[in-house]
């Protein structure tokens, strides 16, 4: 069964992880190192309530990028001060109090980590590797448990106690130009981490630029030398809806190659394309997919965190988070809002939508709530006036719950429908929508259909 993973990025998202209505929608929680470091007691309490498997992403790659990405502007905008950047407190805490060593040097010297920290004339510095592995291991295995008092530990027992289901070795981004050096370091870190950690599996986090994938063979070859317990894959800015057919095929090929060298392969930021690739008939090319709550199906490596996007409406048949207007442009002219029956048949039958039918009394009023907004007028410096809309709190919450129910359905469908049925669904909705509304919002369905059909035949 493919694992459905939720990324937990801020405590404001807690509500979507807890409670009987949400608990059954996902399998594993991925915590970002930043939040664990900054508020370990809050995270411990959250995990205790959630009672789910979890793992902690130590985010070591954050320290190899230009340090501006680790800072925020602290200038007083009311006083019109010029921008003044300081390291974010959570990053300082992660570096200085949790990870130490070369990570705290990034803060002290205001310079990113370079491969030279771990290598000397092409030779791995074992002392440096060992040091970071020790601190990264302790951060993941000990911090949360240490925040719970004995009484709490007695009462609370998660599926794996308070240990993560696996630990992640220190890792760095494989960029276009220096991927080879970082790959060697990542592999060395994995090997040492594996030696240090005995009671839980060790996973390798593979964060890679699309350009570095041109060297897929070398990357796979290096990984095949260590056969990690599991791999977490994150391809920078990998927007599944925007991939060309050849890119989908390359992605599938890469997954197959990786899969042959590990027990578990998860995509850290994926959408429906990746979920489809978890289909049992494909032999489990992927074993799980992670996303955030109504965002995060793709992610850029920098900036590090921040920037929650606006609420969008997840249209199941398109497997895409659409601007609400684009979604309306598809569902309204087709009469899908004419009755609750038509809405349920063509758009969605999740609990969130049902609640809105009951509350609002009609399908179109239910759908309309997802687009509710507060217009805001902004006058630019040049005097031009711009009017923007921000979704209401009610709309954002409804859109998030609707999204999560639909994601759970996608995972269910992969287990209950045949691969061919799911492919045919892609083709059918592409034909139906493109005929009257153009290809713009559905072309990805055709691309996936053609690429995956071929893939299966290979």
């Amino acid at each position, binding site marked *: 069964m493919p694992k459905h993973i939720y990324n937990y990025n801020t405590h404001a998202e807690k509500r979507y992880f807890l409670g009987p209505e949400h608990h059954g929608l996902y399998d594993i929680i991925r915590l970002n190192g930043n939040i664990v470091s900054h508020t370990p007691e809050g995270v411990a309490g959250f995990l205790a309530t959630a009672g789910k498997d979890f793992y902690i992403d130590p985010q070591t790659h954050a320290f190899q990028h230009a340090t501006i990405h680790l800072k925020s502007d602290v200038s007083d905008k009311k006083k019109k001060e010029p921008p003044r950047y300081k390291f974010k407190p959570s990053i300082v805490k992660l570096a200085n109090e949790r990870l130490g060593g070369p990570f705290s040097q990034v803060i002290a010297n205001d310079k990113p980590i370079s491969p030279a920290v771990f290598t000397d004339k092409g030779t791995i510095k074992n002392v440096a590797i060992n040091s970071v592995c020790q601190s990264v291991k302790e951060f993941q295995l000990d911090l949360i448990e240490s925040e719970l008092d004995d009484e709490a530990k007695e009462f609370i027992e998660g599926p794996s106690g308070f240990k993560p289901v696996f630990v992640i070795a220190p890792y760095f981004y494989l960029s276009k130009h220096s991927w080879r050096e970082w790959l060697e370091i990542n592999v060395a870190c994995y090997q040492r981490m594996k030696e240090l950690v005995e009671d839980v599996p060790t996973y390798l986090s593979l964060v890679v630029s699309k350009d570095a994938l041109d060297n897929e063979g070398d990357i796979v070859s290096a990984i095949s030398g260590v056969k990690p317990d599991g791999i977490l894959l994150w391809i920078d800015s990998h927007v599944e809806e925007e991939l060309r057919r050849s890119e989908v095929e390359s992605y599938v090929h890469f997954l197959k190659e990786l899969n042959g060298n590990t027990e578990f392969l998860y995509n850290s930021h994926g959408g429906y394309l990746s979920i489809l690739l978890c289909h049992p008939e494909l032999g489990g090319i992927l074993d799980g997919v992670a996303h955030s709550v109504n965002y995060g199906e793709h992610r850029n490596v920098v900036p590090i965190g921040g920037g929650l996007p606006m609420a969008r409406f997840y249209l199941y048949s398109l497997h895409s988070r659409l601007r609400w*207007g684009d979604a*309306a442009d598809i569902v*309204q*002219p087709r009469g899908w809002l004419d009755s609750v029956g038509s809405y349920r048949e063509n758009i969605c039958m999740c609990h969130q939508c049902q609640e809105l039918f009951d509350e609002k009394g009609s399908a*179109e*009023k239910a759908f309309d709530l997802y687009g509710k907004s507060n217009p805001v007028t902004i006058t630019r410096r040049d005097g*031009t006036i711009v*009017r*923007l809309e921000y979704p209401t709190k009610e709309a954002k919450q409804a859109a998030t719950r609707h999204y999560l129910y639909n994601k759970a359905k996608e995972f269910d469908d992969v287990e209950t429908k045949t691969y061919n049925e799911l492919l045919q669904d892609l083709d059918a909705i592409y034909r139906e929508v493109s005929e009257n509304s153009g290809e*713009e919002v559905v072309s990805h369905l055709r691309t996936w259909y053609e690429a995956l059909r071929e893939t299966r035949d290979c």
Partner: protein
Amino acid sequence: MSEKSIVNAIVETLRVYGFTVATEVANFYRSADVGALARNGDVWVVECKVSSIGQAIKQAKTHKLSADKVFIATFYKNTREITLRRIRDAGLGLLYVMPDGSVSKPVELPKRNMPWGLARKRLSERILELRENNA
């Protein structure tokens, strides 16, 4: 020649014809350059562009959900036939702002859309609200 001068010419013209007009009207998380209410209650939206008519067509399509008629307005020029066809096929109208500031229509007025009632009502209210705030 700026987009603002196109907007101004359209606003003036619509007012002469008795429309209640507002600019930069929030609609479907997009901003309609000009929103107008006719005396008979019809709702019009005009997207104003100096260039990038293709982009305007894309933006204007969403407004069709809430407006009875949607137009693209630009400065007078020799628009290619293929572009005119795209505008017509999208069910949109085209308005030219002439060098003297008058407005002409190089293609026939678009047919009345069948907008979504809820969205049309909201857009009407926003146009009226903006007019009141600016009055």
